[in-house]
């Protein structure tokens, strides 16, 4: 090969595979990307593996086992740049609901022989274990943003990803506010942009799958949702989904327990 192509590795921890699938969902760009970079490790796509170190590692999933807690240390050691993708890797994912419960009880509810199961009591984001260079939010991530993040790192600049709320995206899209117009509870005011404000465009309130925006005012939003008819159980549930493990949403949910 005449020129050095940067090596990219894709790693999976506890997750649904949807975020790494987003890379294969880049139907128009995938083969171009594969020309620009060397896909060094991506088990969902290929058996071929190159040994590290890697220029960029893309990490999906959260840490839920001792084995994975050790494995992420190896991944960090092998990677110049480590980017986490999705709510599992950046906030612990839906499986972080165990952080609010007793994992032994969870295990015995699902498995007849809980002794066969080896798991940690918590689901934690990658940043709780190793330094992370960039975190891309979303459950799932937006594939256009993923390409932007990879492209930015390849050219040595900051990714152009905005940290404002979903509300801004609704305004930009020209969607009428579902809360103002219909009284529909919506997490848009406290949720990180990036999805393109899909839910309000389909007549439903945002359910926060992109996690908290920069400095969200959850107390104010909770008060408004209570006026619209949400009770305490509803308010716990609404913050406790795919980004339940994020600090802002975790705190907001505990306020209503």
């Amino acid at each position, binding site marked *: 090969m005449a020129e050095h192509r940067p090596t990219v590795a894709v790693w999976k921890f*506890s*997750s649904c*595979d*949807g975020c790494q699938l987003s890379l294969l969902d880049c139907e128009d760009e995938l*083969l171009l990307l594969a020309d620009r970079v060397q896909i060094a490790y991506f088990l969902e796509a*290929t058996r071929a593996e190159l040994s590290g170190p890697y220029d960029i590692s893309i990490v999906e999933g959260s840490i839920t086992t001792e084995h994975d807690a050790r494995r992420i240390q190896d991944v960090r050691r092998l990677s110049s740049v480590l980017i986490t993708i999705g709510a599992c890797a950046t906030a612990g994912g839906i499986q972080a609901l165990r952080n609010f419960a007793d994992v032994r009880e969870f295990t015995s509810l699902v*498995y007849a022989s809980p002794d066969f199961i080896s798991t940690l009591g918590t689901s934690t984001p990658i940043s709780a274990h190793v330094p992370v260079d960039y975190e891309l939010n979303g459950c799932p991530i937006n594939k256009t943003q993923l390409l932007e993040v990879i492209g930015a790192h390849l050219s040595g600049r900051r990714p152009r990803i905005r940290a404002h709320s979903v509300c801004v995206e609704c305004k930009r899209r020209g969607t009428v506010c579902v809360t103002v117009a219909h009284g529909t509870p919506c997490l848009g005011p406290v949720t990180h942009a990036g999805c393109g404000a899909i839910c309000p465009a389909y007549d439903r309130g945002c359910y926060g799958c992109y996690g908290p925006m920069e400095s969200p005012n959850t107390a104010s939003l909770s008060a408004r949702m209570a006026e619209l008819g949400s009770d305490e159980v509803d308010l716990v549930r609404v913050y406790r*989904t795919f980004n339940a493990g994020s600090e802002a949403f975790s705190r907001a949910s505990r306020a209503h327990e």
Partner: protein
Amino acid sequence: MSENGATRIIRTDYLARVEGEGAMYVKVDGETVVDVKLRIYEPPRFFEALLRGRSFTEAPDITARICGICPIAYQMSAVRAMEDACGVSIDSGPLRDLRRLIYCGEWIESHSLHVYMLHAPDFLGYPGAIEMARDHGDVVRQGLEMKKAGNALIAMVGGREVHPINIRVGGFYRAPTKAEMRPLLEPLQRARETALATVSWTAGLDFPDVTCEPELVALSDPGRYPIDLGRIVSGRGLEIAPAEFGAHIVEEHVEHSNALHARIRERGSYLTGPLARWALSGDQLRPLAAAAASDAGLERGCRNPFRSIIVRAVELVEACDEAIAIIESYEEPDAPSVEVTPRRAVGHGATEAPRGMLYHRYEIDEDGSILDAEIVPPTSQNQLAIEEDLREVVQRHLDLPNEELSLRCEQAIRNHDPCISCATHFLTLTVERD
């Protein structure tokens, strides 16, 4: 240890080109395969436990996150189970058509991914589709384009490709307009052409001559190829409503796996997925897909798991053809959903995920809180059948060197498009000999 000391252990710790994390372990004593295990070590995520106490309306969004490859299957089985619990059925009319339509999108997306990106490299001798694209660029590009048509359909009806947001208990949050539907037609028509070409292309691949024995199980929906609902039937006389699933099928927990193994009471392993659907409902295909299957020489009741790639291609034709028909006759429904009022009850839902039947059962309280949840994904239903295939492959190819044998084993697993995030994922193979 065997008498001649020839014990071989074949172990693959990560399996590539499947969705999720799994491993394989085979033990050979002399000339006999004594142990085969498909290990599923995708860390447990405890969905059935974390659903307790949630609202019945949250089940489709939460269970979608079990699998990023087939979220619609999870959403559809969940909404059907909740509607069943609440005494509502959406078995006909425009809302059901819309459900079939978005489900067709998932079949197109998932089958294109499997046929072109995950499975074809095994037949053509490449480690993956990206490497395959260097020599067969046009083939990979046409697969990607077909996949894109499926994704565009999901994104339009569902809001986005992965974890769509528009599916709810009772229907949809918003029904698409006719104007939004129209731009999908042209890419779907092209995808249908590609799917037809895919049937002949896959039929021309080289297949080893193998058969699998397990009981074939699929939904049956007279008048339609089974996708979104139906009774559960088998080639050995099973014929039950989804509500009777638990009376006939048991799930067991074994030490080597984080997935539960399902078996039919008193008979044992069974197989769901394309081979089962084709064997049991092949006569329900629309004329175009039926003719494509016939032209390709695909035999009804085919039990060669390698030939499942042809069945997936036929199902791609069916899904494109049906999606086009639904869009062409689409009339916007009066309301995007029907009212569903919770009551204290148990509900069951079974639908056909691209890789096989997916069953959900929920018990809910009168306020709609989930009291109990049970989810049986296709891969845990197929796990015993996959292990039986592995045993057969190893037994037939004991003469092969370890590396090649490992590859054969991986292929035997990929034949079933296992989803390890649902139940399992990939294999890395190491072979130990005494």
